[in-house]
Every structure is written in structure tokens, then in C-alpha cells.
């Protein structure tokens, strides 16, 4: 947590061991009473809805808990063994790793590119920033609806297929480009969601998240860019860095170090917990699970384990495996990027 400064928050030294406040006043009882009154909602709330679930969930993961959420029927590590042996669970881990490998670098590159484009544009900065940022206000459900029912619905009247038809056939792009396009997508009646081969549903899933989240990370990058002192660029110019690539490589990127780590971590944690778009684009609330089998991320798997199969013990075991993975990767990522080191 000891990372700030790059984003304009006052640096306060090591947050954890700093005394809460300078003890220049004599100890007074009203301060003590007020303190505990003020932190009470937070402590009770976190205790009840974060700590207790973790403890209870852990105990539940060691119990046989089918159709019940009470403890008592201890089975040791059996839930962990059985979920790790389950091919579907392992498949869901592969799915989410693949998804993360696509979405995290893409988000990083696109949001950084947007930030640099918007930041240096001069006139119109505010307008463009707003345009790229608005999708943040839209929910995954709404975006899934637009993507699944509007753009990629697979009917000839769906936008993507209409576009393919228009560009590919009538009137079609010149110089055989249209035909090239049709060959690439395999015609103009593409089933975007619903076939494992070719897996176009990945295009749908990746673009929807990209559209929803790059504006958010762009804002973080813009804040980071504005923290880099202008004088560094001037100095670089004097030192002979002429091309845009050189200033980017030697000034911008190192200056964005802390911001970049934050963006990578936040987008990784978010991607690993993907649920909404997979649930709504591939499956749904209806009894039929639709195309959910195509790509079932761990959270969808756990949702089914707990609320369809009513096996809370196994569901909890899976939740802990996933939590451990996320914490592990976060720590490794922090190690690699030298977390807490002075930037």
C-alpha cells in the first residue's frame, strides 16, 4: 500500500508505522470515546461482512455442505481435492488466464495510447477525454446487451454482419479488399457467439471489456503523465533526444512507472474476477445456460457450484483457491516491479 506520490497524494512516509497523529495534546478521554465511536461502524461492518465470511467460508470449505450453509460435517481437504480434480474447474482457470493475457496488455496499451493522444492535443482535450471516459458510467449488463443483441447478434440484420455484407459484397470495398475481409471472417453470416470454432466470442468478450474500462485507466495515465515535470522533456531535448520514440522510452515510460504498476494490478485483479459479461453474453439467468460452456470463468463456475448445485463447501473451496491465486500473482507482480521501492 505504500505507493503514492506519483499520483498527487501527499507522501506521508510509511503509512503503517507512522503515529496516527502528533501527540502534542494531552490525552483526553473525549478523544478516545469519539475515536472508537467513529471507527465503530467500519470495524463492525468489516468484521461482519469481510472477516466473518472469510472465516466461515474457510470452515465451510472444510465441511461437507450440500444444500446447507451450516458447519459441522468435517471432511478435511476433500472439497479442495475434488474441485482441483474437476476438469471443468481447471478449464475455467485456463479460460481466465487466457482472458487475462489478452485483456491486460491490450487495456494497458490502448489506455496509455489514448492518454498520450488526449493529453497532448491542446484544443479539445476536455471533449475527447469525456468521450473516452463516458463508457465507465455504463454497466457490464447494458454493454453486454448492446454487444450481444445489437452488434454481434449473428443475424444478417445485426450490425457486424451488416457491415461485413456492406464492405464485402454490396457495394463492397475496392481492389478485392472486400473479398479478403469476407474470407477472413468466413462470409457475412458470422455466428459471433455460439460456436467454439472459430471462437469469435472472444472478440465479443474482449471488445466489450475494452470499451468499458480503457477510459478509466486512461484517466489514471493522464494523471500520471501530468506528474512528469516538463523540464525533463526540455532536458532530453538538449541532450539530443529528438525522436518521439526516444523521449517516450527514456522520459515518459520511466516517469509512468508507478502509474503503470497500478494500472496493471487493477486491470489484472478486475479481469480475474470477470463475471458479468461472460454471464450475460454467453449465458444468463434463464434455466438454460446457453453458450456458457464456451468460456466459463471461475466466478461463473463458482456461481453455479453454489447456487445451482447448492454445494457451498465446494464453492467456498474454489473461492479460496482463486483468492490465493490473485494474492499470489499480486505479490509476485509487486516483487517484479519493485513495489515500495522509491521511484
Amino acid at each position, binding site marked *: 500500500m505504500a505507493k503514492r506520490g506519483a499520483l498527487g497524494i501527499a507522501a506521508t512516509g510509511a503509512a503503517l508505522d507512522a503515529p496516527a497523529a502528533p501527540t502534542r495534546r494531552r490525552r483526553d478521554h473525549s478523544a478516545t470515546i469519539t475515536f472508537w465511536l467513529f471507527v465503530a461502524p467500519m470495524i463492525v461492518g468489516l468484521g461482519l461482512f469481510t472477516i466473518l465470511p472469510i472465516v466461515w467460508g474457510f470452515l465451510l470449505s472444510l465441511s461437507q455442505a450440500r444444500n446447507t450453509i451450516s458447519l459441522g460435517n468435517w471432511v478435511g481437504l476433500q472439497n479442495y481435492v475434488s474441485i482441483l480434480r474437476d476438469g471443468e474447474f481447471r478449464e475455467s482457470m485456463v479460460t481466465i488466464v487466457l482472458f487475462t493475457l489478452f485483456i491486460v496488455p491490450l487495456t494497458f496499451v490502448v489506455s496509455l495510447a489514448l492518454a498520450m493522444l488526449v493529453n497532448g492535443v491542446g484544443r*479539445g482535450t476536455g471533449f475527447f477525454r469525456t468521450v473516452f471516459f*463516458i463508457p465507465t458510467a455504463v454497466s457490464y449488463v447494458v454493454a453486454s446487451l448492446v454487444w450481444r443483441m445489437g452488434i454481434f447478434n449473428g443475424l444478417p440484420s445485426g450490425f457486424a454482419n*451488416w457491415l461485413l455484407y456492406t464492405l464485402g459484397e454490396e457495394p463492397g470495398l475496392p481492389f478485392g479488399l472486400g473479398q479478403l475481409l469476407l474470407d477472413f471472417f468466413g462470409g457475412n453470416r458470422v455466428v459471433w457467439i455460439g460456436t467454439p470454432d472459430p471462437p469469435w466470442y472472444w472478440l465479443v468478450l474482449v471488445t466489450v471489456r475494452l470499451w468499458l474500462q480503457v477510459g478509466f485507466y486512461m484517466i489514471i495515465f493522464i494523471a500520471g503523465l501530468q506528474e512528469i515535470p516538463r523540464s525533463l522533456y526540455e532536458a532530453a531535448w538538449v541532450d539530443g533526444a529528438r525522436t518521439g520514440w526516444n523521449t517516450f522510452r527514456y522520459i515518459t515510460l520511466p516517469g509512468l512507472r508507478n502509474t503503470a504498476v497500478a494500472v496493471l494490478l487493477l486491470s489484472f485483479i478486475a479481469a480475474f474476477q470477470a463475471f458479468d459479461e461472460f454471464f450475460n453474453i454467453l449465458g444468463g439467468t*434463464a434455466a438454460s445456460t446457453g453458450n456458457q460452456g464456451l468460456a466459463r470463468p471461475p466466478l461463473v463456475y*463458482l456461481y453455479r457450484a453454489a447456487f445451482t448445485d447448492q454445494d457451498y463447501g465446494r464453492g467456498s473451496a474454489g*473461492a479460496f483457491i482463486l483468492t490465493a491465486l490473485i494474492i499470489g500473482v499480486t505479490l509476485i507482480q509487486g516483487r517484479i516491479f519493485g513495489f515500495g521501492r522509491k521511484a
Partner: protein
Amino acid sequence: MASAPMAQPTRPRSRLYEWQRFAYRYLGPALRYIVLIALALLFLFPFYLMIRTAVITQPEVASFDWVWWPQETHWRENLEGIFNDQTAPMSVGLRNSAIIAGANLLLQTLFASMAGYALARLPVRGSSLVFFLILSTLMVPSAVTFIPSYVVVANLGGVNTLWGIIVPGLFNAFAVFLFRQFYLDFPVEIEEAGRLDGLSHAGIYWRLVLPNSIGVLAALGILSFINSWNAFLWPLVIGQHPSSWTTQIVLSTYITAQTINLPYMFMGAVVGALPLVIVFLVMQRYIVEGVRLSGIKG
């Protein structure tokens, strides 16, 4: 003449040089604008598609020729269509979402600000331990623990209730961290003035500190409003009965149950997203600040 002008190492004004200058001055910026405008159109396209399909008729939407904008817009019919749909009650969903998001806006920020202020400004032994405890809960990714959380809330009788959806989300440890940072830099003079006026600690907080931290309160409040309006997984888990559905659950039912036609569905999306887009545009300054603050999470 002692001060003969030194020969300046000027570049020859070659054609290449002129061309470079021209490119640097005009071509680069022009190219940048073209790329930006193209990207802007791409980013706005889903909004266009949403609104266009919400005001169209079913035959037009199924047409092989793309109807960019209908001859006649059908705002009223399609709007009535979704509010008359009984299988997925949109009016209930909107009401629930408003209550949930409103409660989050007020209480999440209030609790976090109170705790942050106490940790930053009230000299009490053990306060760093409390701070450490609160921060340590950040290690746990929130969405992953939805099953254990469900178990606890179910035991407390929170299934199918609005409080079951609201209360577990009110305690934001990261916001405590941000508020503590903010209050560490809060001017001491304001508090001293309050003390001279005989205000208690709580009085100082309520009358002087809170009104002077509107910016941070707004930034984090609006973000929590948007997040809880748009939340899906937790309301899906807790709100199993239609009476406790949120807007997002209603829309999700539209997508999968397919009991209504496409224009109605998109009108639902417009109704569910428009309030937020407006809030977003009006409050953008605060939201940008809030996101900037979120950037220091990690």
C-alpha cells in the same frame, strides 16, 4: 570590430528541413486529430446503437438494410412497452437501484470519512493497529468472496431484502485509507478555531471538517453511486425474488429470457444507463478526481 558575429551552426534550409518543419507544425497535429475523431466515433457508436434501436420498430430492426435512424421515432410506445412488461418489472428495478445507490452514496462515504478522520486526527493509543486491521482486509478480492458473504447474509436473514444488498457493501477499507490521507493534510487551524468555540471532537468533525471536505466526499460518493448502480453479481446472488431485483437484473432477464422484443430491450438499456450517463457528465470533475485517487490503489 571585435564582436564579429559568430557563425551560427544553422542547418541548410534544405527541402527536407522545410518538409520536417511542415510535418512537425501541421501534419502531426492534423493526423492526431484525425485519429482522435475516428476513435471518438468508435467509442460513441454503442451509444448511438443503443438509442437508435430503442426508438425503432421491430420490422425496422429486422430489416436487412441498416436503418440509421427511423422515419418516425417510437419513444412512447417502447417506453410503455417495458413498463408494462410483467415478467421483469422495470419500475421496481429502477426504484430498488435508486435506493441502493443512494444509500451507498451517503453511508459508504460517511463511514469511511468518519473512520479516516478518527485515524488521522484523534490521538488514541492503538489507532495504528486499527488502521492496519482495516487495511489488511484490502488483500481479499471482493468478488471472489461472494459465496462466503452470501452464507453470512443468508444467516442474518438478508436474502431477498434491500438491506442484504446494501449493507455488506458499505464498508470500503480503501476509502478509509484515502480519507485518512486527506485528513492528515487538513489544516489544523480550522480544528483549533472549533476548539476555541467550545466544540466537541464530534462537533468539530460534523460542523467544520465535513463541510470542508465536500470535494473528496463528492468524488468518492459519486463513484460508489455508479458502482452500486451498475453492480451485478451481488444483487444477483441476494435478490432472487423479482421484488428485490435491481435494474441490472431486470436487464439481464431481458437478454436471456427474451420475453420482449429488441426495441423494448434497448429502451430498457437506455432507461438503465441514461441516468448514470447524465450524472457522469454533470459530475465529471469529481469523478476524474475519484478515479485519480483510485489509481494509487495497488
